[in-house]
């Protein structure tokens, strides 16, 4: 007979930590065994961790699971966190690592297809169209709000390697060097892959916005 615990009881009345208690303070308490402090860290970063995972895996259920597993790993390795980087940086690193790992098989097939694409073909058409359409104050542009709703769809259509590098660069904020290390590729490949990813994303956004440029790459092209 095997009986496994399925649900554990937590105190009904929770201590609420003030919002201004910094991450390091909560980490110190969590490391000392304070479950509520750890819970506060989870609540603080849960949506952002989920967003990073979702950007890479593009499956809400899988992203949810990756986000949960991220915090389980964070809890397990809390003692190893030295505070040399921000706590959030450490958490997002674990999240993106798990997300990449969960879709790593997809990457192999997509890679060959895209890395060999000619740069010249990708460079054609559409320069500045989005910037012009978004106007001088993009933050307040109606088109921007429209495009925000379309970015998810565009991400769904990008190969996993391109989604990943965009999320790591734009959301996690990694530098070229950090990207090279994380993805185990050269700095040159980082720049090239990032360029291809952005180009493809821009082409899709232009298409959604009805701003297709003459000579734009077709749907199946990189």
């Amino acid at each position, binding site marked *: 007979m095997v009986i496994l615990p399925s649900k554990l009881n937590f105190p009904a009345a929770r201590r609420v930590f003030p919002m201004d208690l910094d991450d390091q303070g909560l980490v110190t308490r969590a490391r000392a065994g304070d479950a509520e402090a750890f819970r506060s860290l989870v609540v603080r970063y849960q949506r952002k961790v989920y967003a990073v995972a979702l950007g890479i*895996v593009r*499956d809400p*259920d*899988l992203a949810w*699971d990756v986000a949960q*597993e991220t915090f389980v790993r964070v809890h397990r390795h809390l003692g190893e966190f030295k505070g040399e980087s921000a706590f959030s940086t450490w958490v997002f690193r674990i999240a993106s690592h798990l997300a990449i790992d*969960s*879709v790593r*098989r*997809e990457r192999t097939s997509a890679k060959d297809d895209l890395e060999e694409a000619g740069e010249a073909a990708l460079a054609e058409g559409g320069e500045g169209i989005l910037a012009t359409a978004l106007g001088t104050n993009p933050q307040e542009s109606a088109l921007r709000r429209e495009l925000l709703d379309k970015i998810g769809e565009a991400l769904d259509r990008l190969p996993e390697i391109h989604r990943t590098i965009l999320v790591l660069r734009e959301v996690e904020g990694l530098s070229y060097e950090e990207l090279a290390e994380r993805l185990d590729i050269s700095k040159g490949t980082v720049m090239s892959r990032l360029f291809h990813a952005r180009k493809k994303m821009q082409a899709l956004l232009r298409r959604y916005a009805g701003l297709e440029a003459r000579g734009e790459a077709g749907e199946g092209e990189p």
Partner: protein
Amino acid sequence: MTRRRALIGVAAAALSLAATAEAAPGIPVRIRVIKGSRQGPAAVDPRLADLHPQLSRLAYSRWEQVGEQQADMDFKKPVAVALPSGERLEIEILESRKDTVTVEVRVPAYRTTSRLTLSKDKRLVQQVTPEKGGEAYFVTVRPWP
């Protein structure tokens, strides 16, 4: 008191039957047959990415999807699934409610039967053949995929 309890019991049973009857016809179920292997380099079929949390708990390093069927399963009408190794499974929905189904998986060759209730967001992963030569077959069942 006893009569009141009996009435409540009858009412509850009637409600329960109504719920069962309402949800019973054509429950979409996704059934996949997967092979776990200890040989060769670690590799997971990308189609199995959603099962990663469950599969990663096991000792097999290679996972491959070898069959899939998706069907609207009727209440108490078993679906037969053939395994590449020759055995045959029977999967049957015994009961369904609004958000749950009770499923039975029978593996006659190994005289094994499992019965469990799955909610909408859950899937069963079950080993259906004993491990032979470092390989074993599994079936995964997900209602409302």
